[in-house]
């Protein structure tokens, strides 16, 4: 053991490159941190595959028989029936059918979860697209043109985030009622865009400032208009910034609860206010709530993983020597 260790350990590790020991300690710390942050997520997932009695047992159960009841309850509405009625039914057509019948219930129809989930997708992605598009154009304008009172305008844009958005909930509620935007997907999209666009402008301005003007100037001399230069040369280089900004905007719009519960109740309701309202018999149906939460986490997870490359790649400024 000592032979394998002695020679390299003493001699060469560069000043910049951390030593193997440092790397191991750092790795252990990262794993520890990841484990701690993963505990709630793991707990939610475990709850989603527990049966309702297991989910509320005390002390909590670490070992249990997995059940799909939570997912079944999430996607369906059920009615209670007599055992005789259930016994007289034809054999169950699927897992959920069987699980439900064990509880002396039959499936009455689909729940509202899917439409609410779809609302969340439309509103969150729609508002993210709007906020990032508007933010990119505004940031480019602030970065490249002499905008009168640019600093004041930028401060004004930022100032919209200086109070918690919910502070203006009542005025917005009244305004939306007057405008007929209450409980509409468009209304929610506009609202989230308005909140996010300030963040987008500020984040993206930083990224676009970093892109040397020479690229656009070169493109304009190469015969392109400024707008063409923007799309062909600036945008491809701003992808990292755009991806990062999009993730921030999406996370906000996706998770937003307060406005959603205030302004939506029916057709435009998003998943966050819906999930906690899933009621089972004799109290909250925790496995169904956990199942809803688990599914709710998936899109943002996928989105982040998809854009992770863009986030990590870093801007290749290599072609311009600084």
């Amino acid at each position, binding site marked *: 053991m000592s032979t394998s260790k002695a020679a390299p350990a003493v001699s060469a590790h560069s000043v910049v490159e951390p030593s193997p020991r440092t790397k191991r300690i750092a790795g252990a710390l990262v794993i520890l941190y990841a484990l701690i942050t993963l505990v709630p997520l793991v707990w939610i997932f475990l709850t989603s595959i527990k049966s309702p009695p297991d989910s509320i047992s005390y002390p909590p159960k670490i070992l249990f028989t997995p059940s799909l009841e939570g997912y079944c309850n999430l996607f369906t509405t059920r009615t209670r029936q007599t055992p005789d009625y259930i016994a007289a039914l034809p054999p169950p057509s699927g897992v959920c059918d069987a699980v439900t019948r064990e509880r002396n219930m039959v499936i009455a129809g689909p729940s509202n979860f899917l439409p609410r989930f779809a609302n969340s997708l439309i509103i969150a992605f729609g508002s993210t697209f709007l906020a990032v598009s508007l933010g990119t154009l505004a940031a480019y304008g602030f970065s490249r043109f002499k905008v009168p009172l640019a600093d004041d305008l930028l401060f004004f844009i930022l100032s919209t985030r200086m109070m918690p958005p919910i502070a203006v909930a009542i005025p917005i509620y009244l305004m939306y009622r007057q405008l007929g935007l209450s409980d509409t997907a468009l209304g929610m999209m506009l609202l989230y865009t308005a909140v996010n666009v300030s963040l987008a402008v500020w984040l993206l301005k930083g990224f676009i400032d970093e892109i040397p003007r020479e690229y656009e100037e070169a493109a304009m001399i190469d015969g392109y208009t400024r707008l063409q230069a923007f799309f062909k040369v600036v945008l491809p280089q701003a992808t990292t910034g755009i991806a990062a900004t999009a993730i921030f905007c999406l996370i906000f719009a996706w998770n937003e609860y307060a406005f959603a519960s205030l302004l939506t109740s029916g057709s435009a309701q998003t998943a966050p206010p819906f999930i906690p309202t899933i009621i089972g018999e004799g109290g909250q149906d925790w496995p169904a709530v956990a199942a809803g939460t688990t599914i709710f986490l998936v899109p943002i997870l996928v989105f982040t993983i998809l854009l992770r490359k863009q986030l990590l790649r870093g801007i290749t400024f290599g072609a*311009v020597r600084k």
Partner: protein
Amino acid sequence: MAEIRVDHLRKAFGEFVAVQDSSFTVEDGEFLALLGPSGCGKTTTLRMIAGLELPTGGAIHLGGEDVTYKRASERDIAFVFQLFALYPHMNVRRNIGFPLLSQGVPKAEIKRRVEETAKLLQIDHILDRPVSGLAGGDRQRVALGRAIVRRPKCFLMDEPLGTLDAEFRDVMVRELRELHNRIHATTVYVTHDQIEAMAMADKIAVMNHGIIEQFATPREIYNRPASMYVADFIGSPPMNFLRFTAGLPKGARIARIDGADVQMPELRADVAEGELALGVRPEHIRFSDTSPLRGAIYGAEYLGTNQIVTVETAGGLVRARLPAERSYRIGDRVGLAFVADRLSLFDCRSGRAVPSVLHEGVLARDTRHREMRDLEAHHG
């Protein structure tokens, strides 16, 4: 290719005047270097020709067409940036072909012309590489390729060799000049490096504080500098100035410096009493025991082929370029003799050269050029 004519061009950024009243003509196929220190207005002048800045006043003609306020994209020029500005998200081939794409050139034609250009620049083996991994010289060649592929009216280059290391710069200087000899493109080349300018340019415009101090061939600028600024900026070591106070009549051939008579080219104008400076290039000095102008050796730098010997005189330090064979001891008294017909006399108040036999024609040249042209235009 086309002629570039710049007329009374002016650019102010608020209070600050970057370029004041510049006029010059780059003839068809000519290579002009705009030379000066940073902040002298040379890059601003170039950017105005390119259409990246709009002038505050004056006019720019490209091939006879007034383009003063036209967009850069409508001027049909090519620009090589100091940092090359190769599009990082495209490979070499797409970078070079990018200007053709905007003109709607068919794909096969783009491919053919990109490959032809790459061959000319000897970069055909890296066409499909990303630009981010390229070495400095190859980047430079790709930037040049992007410029010449379109066969524009003229090339504008903004210190394109500024970021290369010294050794490689020499190679590129040679390549650029060879390229120019082959394709005869009207070129404006901005640099602060006098050696680049001297080695490549047909004409040099020396700029300072937004003013063109002299516009002439490299030889003329070196041998007959129009001002003390030009004399000092060009040459390494720069021209020596022996300061003295006198008034000289037209026809004078002798300047009296520190009690010694120094021969110089015959003056063509009267000079009022005041501080004057006799300009002497280091290589026009030799040591002569009989010379009445004396000094003491102050130091010597051995350069192999020759040496630069610094002599302390009453008029200040003088640096002489002498053969390398002899070595000198610091403190030794020597006499200085000059090559009389190569000396310039400057008026220190204005900084301008006093007209003499040597300078005949230099100062008036540009204005005369313009008058001739106006005259021709009149008759035409």
